[in-house]
Every structure is written in structure tokens, then in C-alpha cells.
């Protein structure tokens, strides 16, 4: 089902989203990849303040190309990065910072799935490589954190977006998982592939 959502969204709304839903987001999102995840978790542990509230935004696994123009920032390309790299710490990150929506690509593992269920977050897939399309839906850059330490791809960027999508929900908060649903079909197909190779 197609859904237009305005961020921030409440916990109940996020909990209702299901695998197969297609979302278009309007509002504030922020980027965080490997290094920003680690930095934020370490800052939290050592009692430092995080300068924004991730629970009010969508978390975007993305390392954008951003260019400085007329004293401000302009997004050139900003598609999703491969989410599975963040599997190492995403469960802890979700439990600590509670963003209601993740935007990434390729899906994540069992630890993240469990955290989606306990926190009430959904994982959505944006088409990988669609960096120019994504940039078109980003209205403005609201700010950036840790640019100096982490560099452009790994810094946390804050974007104001309009109709940002299509975002396909592929992992939800009630155990739904599109990638897992596909596995029996692929396993069945692999039997045919292997039989064909054996037959030469």
C-alpha cells in the first residue's frame, strides 16, 4: 500500500507499517554510515550530548555527494549505501536512538530484525544507485555534523525532503521480511540450476 508520511511520525504509525508498503516521506532525515554510527554510540556511552534527536527523523544509510554553493550546501547525488555493513551495531543504535524508519538498500540481518521488533522501527529499501533521483527530492541541506572528523561520505547530513521515495518496506516490526520470504523460491530455483550444471 502506498503511504505518504510526514516526519516526525509517532510510534503507533511506525508500528503499523508492513512489508510491501511503499512510502514517500516529507520532512527531516539524517544520514549515518559506519563511522557516524560508531561515533554516536561512543558519544552516548561517554555521556556526551548528541546535537539532534534521531527519534524525530528517518535514518538514511547514505554517503552523499554534497557541494558548497553560495555559502550553502547543495546535494548532488544521495542514493542509499549497502545497509548490511551497519549490522555490526545497528541493533544497539536503534535501541539507543530509536529512529522510526531506516532507509537503505539490500536489507539487514537477524540482530537488526530483532531490534526493529523491540523498538518499533521499519526498514525500507530505496533503489540502489538512484543518487540523482534521490537528490531531486531533497529540498535543502539543514546542516551537517562531524564533517571535519569523518569526511563527506561518513558525516551526518541533515536533509529536508519532499515525497522522498519510493521506499519499499522490506523488514517490519512484526517479523515481516521480504528477503526471507524470497529464500524458499531461490532455494528451489537453485536446485534446478545445480541439476542443469550436473547434466552438463
Amino acid at each position: 500500500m502506498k503511504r505518504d508520511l510526514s516526519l516526525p511520525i509517532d510510534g503507533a504509525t511506525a508500528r503499523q507499517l508492513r512489508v510491501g508498503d511503499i512510502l514517500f516521506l516529507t520532512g527531516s532525515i539524517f544520514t549515518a554510515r559506519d563511522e557516524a554510527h560508531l561515533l554516536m554510540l561512543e558519544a552516548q556511552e561517554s555521556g556526551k550530548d548528541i546535537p539532534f534527536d534521531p527519534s524525530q527523523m528517518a535514518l538514511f544509510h547514505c554517503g552523499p555527494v554534497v557541494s558548497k554553493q553560495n555559502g550553502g550546501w547543495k546535494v548532488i547525488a544521495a542514493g542509499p549505501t549497502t545497509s548490511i555493513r551497519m549490522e555490526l551495531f545497528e541493533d544497539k543504535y536503534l535501541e539507543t536512538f530509536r529512529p522510526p524508519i531506516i532507509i537503505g538498500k539490500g536489507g539487514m540481518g537477524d540482530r537488526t530484525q530483532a531490534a526493529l521488533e523491540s523498538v518499533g522501527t521499519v526498514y525500507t529499501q530505496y533503489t540502489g544507485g538512484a543518487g540523482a533521483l534521490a537528490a531531486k527530492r531533497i529540498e535543502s541541506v539543514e546542516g551537517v555534523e562531524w564533517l571535519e572528523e569523518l569526511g563527506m561520505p561518513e558525516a551526518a547530513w541533515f536533509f529536508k525532503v519532499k515525497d522522498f521515495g519510493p521506499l519499499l518496506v522490506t523488514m517490519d516490526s512484526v517479523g515481516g521480511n521480504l528477503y526471507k520470504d524470497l529464500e524458499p523460491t531461490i532455494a528451489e530455483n537453485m536446485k534446478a540450476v545445480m541439476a542443469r550444471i550436473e547434466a552438463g
Partner: protein
Amino acid sequence: MGSMTIQEALLVALKQAVTVLPQDVVNALQEARERETSSMGAAQLDAILENVAIARDGSIPMCQDTGIQTFFVEAGVNSPFLKDLRHWIGEAMIQATATVPLRPNTVDPFTGKNPGDNSGRFMPLIHWELVDGDDVLISILPKGGGSENMSALKMLAPGVGMKGIKRAVVEHIVSCRGWPCPPTILGVGIGGGADIAMKLGKKAVLREIGSRNAVPEAAELERELLELVNMTGVGPMGVGGETTCLAVHVEYAHRHPASLPLGILVQCWADRRARVRLNADGIAEVISR
């Protein structure tokens, strides 16, 4: 395109590579879209094609990961410019990073520092090959990290034979799921040694879609592997569908009797490439694709 200096041509080619997808890849994506029976897979291909058009029309990078640029240089031994090429390529890289712009992607493995201009130790990567004549042909392959992470080396036991190679390739592609941004282009390097198999695989990625290895057995393996990987149903972006790979290209070398190295180079759908030719008079051109 008209003649220009090598510096100009490298800048034009670097921009072209990341903003305009070669027509053979666009055609293959369109054919995949026409064949696609999964609605979710089709939606992924629609978004890719729309994205490719936006990037081309606006001269902006089609993907935010503009990659780490690998240059394959076929250097004519009689070219008077051999000693300058590394410098020119390095300078063009830094300039293109600022002007296209490209994402600064080079990171020091020890300090984590990013110099911000795509320079660095051994950067940009250059593979040199000496050839006859006085022309220099430079192929540029900006390769994203997501698909490079899915590339693999398998040191197979020679006893598994060609069947073992086919099994290993299909099993690997299924294990990659949607992570390398399928539909992908596979470069398969066979033989040589561990390093050569990987390098041959990467060179295979440079080939145009629709081209076939000149050796009939290798061409047949390309055809068969493509059919096999597309039977798996992984589909565009791993959400299920008909097309997991757009093309499979095989390159090979003779091997040690005890070794069967298999390099599987995975290239995302954004199979970005560009070529520059430099002649002995110092006139350069970007070769149209």
C-alpha cells in the same frame, strides 16, 4: 568528439563516466525492464532508468558513490608521453573531484583520514600494459564500494572442472543477494594466479555488453553463466525477479596444474566506463561509446 589536450580529455572522460551511462548498459536495462514479470523488480528497474535519465540530462553523477577510479592504460612503447601519464592522471583526478564533483572516496586505512580530493597512496589506481605503437589508450572504470565488496576470489581444486566454476559463480551471486545493486555485470577471471584472476575479472567488466570472448569455449561459458544466474530469481536489487545479471564476461589465462583460481568481479548496474586515446602528437580524444 573533437581533439583536445590529454588534460582536457581526461576531465571530459571522468565526467562522462559518472554522469552518462554507456548506451549498451542502458539498452540492457531497458530490455530487462521489458522482460520483468515481478512488479517489485520492475519498480526497481523503473527507478534506475529514471535516475539514469535525470543524471544524463542534468550532467550530475548517477550514483553518489562515484567510486574509486581504476585506470587501465594500454601504453604504446613509442609514445613520447609515458613519463608524464601518471602525473596527468593524478592531476585530472583531483580536478574532476572538485569540478564534476566526485565524492572524495580515498581513506587512509590507519588514520581513517580522507584527504578530500581522491588522492592518496597508490591512488588513483593505474594498471599498466605495454603495447606496440605510439598511441596510448586509457580506460577509466569508476567502481563503487558496494559492488566491489561483493567481489570474491575462489581458489578451486582443479578437479572440480568447469562444472565447479559454474557452481561457484552461481552460489556466490546468490549469496550476494541485493547487496551489489543488481542487475549486475559479472567479470569472471579464470586461471593465472590469485592476483591475475582478479585482474582479468576486472578487465572483463570493461567490455561492452553484448561482446563475446573470441575463444568459443569462453564465449559459451559466458552465455551459460548468464542463463544460470538469471534462473536464481534474486532479481533487481534482490527483491525478486527475472534479471539478476545483465551480462557475464569471461577472461582467462593458463594456470598452474595444482591451481584453479576463479576471480568473480561484481559490477553494479551503474557500469560506468570511459576511454581516452592520446596520439604521439599530443592530441587526445574521448572515444564515443
